[in-house]
């Protein structure tokens, strides 16, 4: 459903993506791992047009991703995004954050959107926080609201950009739990993460990216347990045994 073919992207003179070719099938959970600065987040940001790309092609369900074209709105309503820093709207309550897209982008009826918004907050375990503003919520709660906001668009896929990297360690589990449930329900997910445990347990496939290229990819367990490429082995050793 998401296809990337020979995607190149430079920031000024620095080429961050050097020909990425990959695809994500419907219902698949793909984790992207790799050192920081390797281009992981840039891939996600190119898929929903937050960044432009210079060469190659990205398509979502056959529709070419072009951030300058009007069709980008169509793609963004089908492919939601969850950010590292949550990026909730601080001037709106949790529930208002969730229904913002359905009400103002998809023009759904108020009653239906609010009903579904409450149900989604309940689904991420925050039914009682509907009227709280983001600054009153913990990081883990904010990220779960952000996931509910992404789900409210009824997307075909969700992109997660290091969703637990800004969280205190004891709050990571709540967010990963919600994501795991989504995966079990068959949501198509692309997850940039440093949580190797999550990748091993939940992902169907893992891509290891370094220096703007896919160094190695394969089924999650195989790649994480028996990495073939020396750079993958080195990276995993350092992530799993930092001391």
């Amino acid at each position, binding site marked *: 459903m998401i296809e990337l073919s020979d995607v190149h992207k430079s920031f000024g003179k620095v080429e961050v993506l050097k020909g990425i070719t990959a695809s994500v099938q419907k219902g698949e959970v793909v984790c992207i791992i790799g050192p920081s600065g390797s281009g992981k987040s840039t891939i996600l940001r190119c898929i*929903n*047009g*937050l960044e432009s790309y210079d060469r190659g092609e990205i398509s979502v369900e056959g529709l070419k991703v072009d951030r300058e074209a009007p069709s980008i*709105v*169509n793609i*963004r*309503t089908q492919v*939601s*995004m969850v*950010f590292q*820093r949550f*990026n*909730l*709207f*601080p*001037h709106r309550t949790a529930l208002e954050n969730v229904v*913002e*897209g359905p009400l*103002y*982008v*998809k023009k759904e009826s108020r009653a239906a959107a609010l009903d579904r918004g409450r149900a989604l907050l309940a689904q991420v375990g925050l039914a009682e926080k509907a009227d709280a503003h983001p*600054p009153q919520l913990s990081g883990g709660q904010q990220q779960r609201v952000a996931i509910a*906001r*992404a789900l409210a*668009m009824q997307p075909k896929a969700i992109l997660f950009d290091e969703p637990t990297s800004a969280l205190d360690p004891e709050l990571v589990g709540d967010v990963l739990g919600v994501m795991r449930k989504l995966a079990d329900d068959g949501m198509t997910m692309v997850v940039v993460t440093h949580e190797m445990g999550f990748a091993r347990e939940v992902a169907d496939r893992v891509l290891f990216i370094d220096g703007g290229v896919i160094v190695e990819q394969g089924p999650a367990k195989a790649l994480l347990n028996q990495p073939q490429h020396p750079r993958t082995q080195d990276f995993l050793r350092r992530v799993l045994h930092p001391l």
Partner: protein
Amino acid sequence: MKGFWHDAAEFFPILLNGVALTIVVTIGSLLLSTVLGLVWAMMRVSGIKALSMLSASLINVIRGIPIIVLLFYLYFVMPDLGVTLSALQAAILGLGIAYSAYQAENFRAGIEAIDKGQIEAAQSIGMGWWLTMRRVVLPQAVRIVLPPYGNVMIMMLKDSSQASTITVAELALQGKLIASSTFKNTNVFTLVALMYLTMSIPLILLVRHFEKRAGKR
């Protein structure tokens, strides 16, 4: 200050007519400068190069011309070009345009202070540029912009006295007329100053309120 209260009682009603015009000029030019400033600021942050350059040049031209010259231009030159404005219209237009440059820079600073992540979050749920502005950026920018906006209100109230140079009989001009016909300069201008101050105080309190509220977040 001899007989100040006596003179005050006599001149106050006449000066009140001036106050009415001062308020009309201030509110009129405040509204105009707000709308124009918002337009310039939107052009500036639109991401469209031609618009943002046009807006930047406009702001610089406006900032570079003294208000009084702008007023003379509108009132004395425009009729030569076939556009005749009343003194009041010219005053509101002139002050509104002059202040739109400062308003624009203030609004732009507020808009640019909003975290880029907010804009990305709005885009990621499919919001276009205008919807992002209306629902996400502007409501948050208002908090940042309000304290300096209050200061602009105070400055406008005082600068409305420049309308006197093109015959708008607002408070300053009324005072000057009374003073020159009665020679009671001290009493008249003291009264005029007190009346401006009285109008400023609520605005000063309003700014303080805005600042307190902005500081809370």
